């Protein structure tokens, strides 16, 4: 016979003002199985919890129902409470009489009646609750960081620093990411390379860090603490261990006309290349799309000049499978394609560039050696027009991105300022909708651009850019000045919106991590768990979660690392005990459940059963790995025989709730 205790919380006046808590407690006391029922001002307070614990001991309760705020708020709290009193934590049910009752109803009688019904449903359910014990699963003490930009590097360094081995998987031949392409950083204007490259070197020299460059994640299996990841390391046709990075091959390669992606196609590289001088690992890579040897078997110059004998035209993609306890996603961002914004003439004139291209044009290691020259004729530009919010803040996917890309205001101010500083003879116009500078020393930076450097900030969007007679005719409106502007510009720089890297979506599917409609990874909680994905063991670092600047990225990267370390220091993990459980006697072995399980938690075994008349039957039956099962319940409905049930949310429990509510 069940002995159930009911505890009705006032939540101060939050509940008590609308729900007659005393009536609720008294009414529920009459329910079958209830041996104790009371109300109290704050059940979650120390005193409230003690009251529950005392009642459990005194009345030898076998189940507890707490009528209070949402279980999403305090279920964990109260589970601990009852556990401390010696009751299994899963013999507790919470009736949500605050968020789903007192806060949405005004009439006291109505709300009280509803609270009673919700209480009854919880009592009906708790009668059927079974004590559940969370299982343990071991933790592999190694982390995987996907993406080797500043976010991935920082996360890896922090994890390695704590003593855990960590692998960085980078799809490009070198780590460093977008930050390597940036010239100076706002608002301090220190050189990006100067602060990034030491970190890259640190990463490459750290014993705990293994950089797997020119590689991609191919398959992810397992679950928190026990991931098994297959990584495809693409053939670079150069033996990484032999190559010294001397660069001789990249000078001798006869194929000179390969667009240099590091400089965004503004200049060319060879078919064998090292992306940039400070690349990590500093080894050459052969681009198979351009290498004559790989395409037609005729050339072999690089192999001839390489004294280290590192060139290997027969190299194959390599599949590496490793076990990890945690995975950090740091896939970053890229600027959007600008084909939709034909009015800015990006595809019509080489002098219309994106801000990232402008970074390269300003960079000493860039195609122009740091001298600002127009791409079309290599001449010095005199009038520059910056356009903000290109593709950001748009209405719907057809127009562009609905979000603010966050970093453009600041880097545009930086560009404008640097241009004016280096070339005081230029006129610089910045067309903005709003200038958004929330950040330490950010607004001051923007004001300096206007006040000290004389950048013309004009409120209004550029309407049209027309290439004409070697100039770019910019038609715009000065909304505050109330005049139409027609500027003959030499260059137009577009602050293109940023979007998540294209590899993020397929990766999310592999990781079973959720994404928003913009393909940014979703965090477990937007405020309280910002660096965790809702999928346990998957963490988020940097711009894959949303647009952010370098300091924010680094902060989040370290935060993600802290979370990973918190996970890896554990020897084992407590599993969610509310998992699917098949009744082997009912199971048909039909594989329906397996097909809908998103975690691959279900396997089948042939098992002997005692048949009628002393016979033995061998049947195929489902087995659930409770460490892998996340308890969604998809299998329970797919199962035609009803053999699969979900602990904690069993058919009987839910039906009991339905009955209690509908009666």
């Amino acid at each position, binding site marked *: 016979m069940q002995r159930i205790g009911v505890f009705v919380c006032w939540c101060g006046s939050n509940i008590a003002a609308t729900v007659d808590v005393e009536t609720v407690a008294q009414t529920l006391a*009459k*329910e*079958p199985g209830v041996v104790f029922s009371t109300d109290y001002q704050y059940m979650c307070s120390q005193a409230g919890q003690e009251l529950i614990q005392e009642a459990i001991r005194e009345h030898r309760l076998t189940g507890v129902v707490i009528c209070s705020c949402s279980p999403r708020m305090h279920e964990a709290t109260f589970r601990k409470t009852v556990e401390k009193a010696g009751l299994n934590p899963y013999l507790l049910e919470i009736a949500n009489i605050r968020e789903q009752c007192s806060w949405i109803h005004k009439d006291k009688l109505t709300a009280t009646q509803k609270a009673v019904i919700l209480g009854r449903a919880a009592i009906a359910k708790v009668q059927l609750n079974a004590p559940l014990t969370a299982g343990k699963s071991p933790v592999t003490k190694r982390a995987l960081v996907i993406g080797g930009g500043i976010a991935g590097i920082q996360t890896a360094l922090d994890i390695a620093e704590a003593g855990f081995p960590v692998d960085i998987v980078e799809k490009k031949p070198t780590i460093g990411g977008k930050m390597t392409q940036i010239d100076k950083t706002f608002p301090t204007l220190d050189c990006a390379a100067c602060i990034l490259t030491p970190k890259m070197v640190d990463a490459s020299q750290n014993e705990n860090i293994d950089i797997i460059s020119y590689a991609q994640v191919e398959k992810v299996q397992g679950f928190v603490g026990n991931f098994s990841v297959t990584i495809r390391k693409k053939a670079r046709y150069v033996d990484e261990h032999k190559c010294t990075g001397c660069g001789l091959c990249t000078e001798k390669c006869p194929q000179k006309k390969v667009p240099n992606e590091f400089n965004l196609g503004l200049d060319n590289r060879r078919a064998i290349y090292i992306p940039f001088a400070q690349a990590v690992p500093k080894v050459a890579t052969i681009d198979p799309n351009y290498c004559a040897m790989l395409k037609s078997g005729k050339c072999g110059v690089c192999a001839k000049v390489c004294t280290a004998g590192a060139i290997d035209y027969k190299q194959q993609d390599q599949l590496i499978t490793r076990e990890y306890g945690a995975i950090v996603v740091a896939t970053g961002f890229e600027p959007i394609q600008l084909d939709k914004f034909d009015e800015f003439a990006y595809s019509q004139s080489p002098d219309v560039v994106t801000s990232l291209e402008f970074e390269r044009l300003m960079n000493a290691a860039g195609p122009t050696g740091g001298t600002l020259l127009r791409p079309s004729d290599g001449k010095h530009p005199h009038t520059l027009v910056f356009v903000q919010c290109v593709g950001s803040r748009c209405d719907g996917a057809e127009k562009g991105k609905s979000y603010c890309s966050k970093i453009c205001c600041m880097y545009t101010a930086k560009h404008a300022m640097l241009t004016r500083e280096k070339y005081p003879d230029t006129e610089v116009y910045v067309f903005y909708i709003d200038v958004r500078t929330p950040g330490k020393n950010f607004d001051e930076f923007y004001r300096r651009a206007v006040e000290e450097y004389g950048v013309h900030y004009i409120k209004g969007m550029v309407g049209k850019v027309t290439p004409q007679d070697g100039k770019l005719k910019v038609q715009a409106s000065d909304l505050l000045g109330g005049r139409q502007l027609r500027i003959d510009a030499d260059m137009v720089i577009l602050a293109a919106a940023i979007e998540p890297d294209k590899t993020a979506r397929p990766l999310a599917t592999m990781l079973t991590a959720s994404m928003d409609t913009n393909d940014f990874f979703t965090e477990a909680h937007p405020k309280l768990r910002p660096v965790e994905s809702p999928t346990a063991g998957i963490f988020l670092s940097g711009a894959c979660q949303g647009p952010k600047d370098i300091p924010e990225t680094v902060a989040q990267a370290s935060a993600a690392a802290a979370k990973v370390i918190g996970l890896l220091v554990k020897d084992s993990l407590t599993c969610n005990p509310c998992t699917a459980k098949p009744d082997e006697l009912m199971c048909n072995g039909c594989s329906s459940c397996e097909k809908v399980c998103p975690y691959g938690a279900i396997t089948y075994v042939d098992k002997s059963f005692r048949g*009628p*008349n002393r016979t033995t039957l061998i049947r195929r039956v489902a087995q659930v790995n409770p460490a892998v099962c996340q308890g969604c319940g998809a299998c329970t409905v797919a199962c035609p025989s009803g053999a699969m049930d979900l602990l904690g949310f069993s058919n009987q429990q839910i039906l009991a709730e339905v*009955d*209690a509510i*509908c*009666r």
Partner: protein
Amino acid sequence: MKTWKLSTLDALFAAIAGKQTLYIPADVAGQPVFARWEPGLAMTRALNTGRSAKDLFFPQVEDLARFRVAGKTVSVSPAQALQEPFVIFGVRACDCRSFDILDSVFLAEPADTFYQARREQATVVTLACSQPEETCFCTSLGIDPQAPGGDVSCWMAEDTLYLQANTEKGEALLASLPRLEDGEKPDADSSVFDKLPLKDLDFSAFSGKALMDWFNSPVWERLSQSCLGCGSCTFVCPTCQCYDVRDFDTGHGVQRYRCWDSCMYSDFTMMAHGTNRPTQKERFRQRFMHKLVYHPNNHGGQIGCVGCGRCLQKCPISMNIVKVANALKEGKA
């Protein structure tokens, strides 16, 4: 003997229904069934109903009691046995005989009060057969389909219905009807019954003392092999009388009811001690042993079958009591 013009059968039904509830075999949703007569409801042209006439005395589902729960108090209200008299018209000789078999079970002490009340309230008006189906074998069980019995026996010939009261209840019913005329029915032609393919079945061998021999017969294994374990034979059978008592949680209490059960089901009599008949062979054997052996052994040789042929028509795999009886006697299946 009384007579009534068949062309005005409706008026006869109206007259009966004016005084008490009347059930006649009629087509409802394309299926012949005993249905409560209402103006416009016509008799079926089918020889017999799909479900047997036992439904009217032993319905498939019957409430026994209601337990009401308020907080921690429980109150019980037993269901009332039927108080209203009713007439069931058009019962065939086979079904009429089935009432005797059911009576021997339900009216034996302690009598089943629900069944008893219905039997007492009912006036059974039977109807003689003239056009049997090939599946009919009541004649092999000593039933005369042309002298069907009941409280009132009826015959249809040409344009006339002939009615003959057999009991006081029957007399009372006929007396209550207006405009019945006197008459004598012409002799019926029974030659078709001699042509029935199953007319020569002999069930006498089963009621002897050889119970264990039948039980241990090797034929059960083969016979039961293709049985699906459904309950269609038991549920259309006029003599099957097994039921289960179940509780339904209404949310406010419990509705206790009984419903037909089938020995063909794997959970039949599971409530008693758990290890019931483990395979379909045992279940299958139980059904036919009961009809052919146990029942006659316990009830003075009365075979638990009336030869209505329903199981022959309805079994999804065409296994039936005739095939079983023949196989048992031949000793091979």
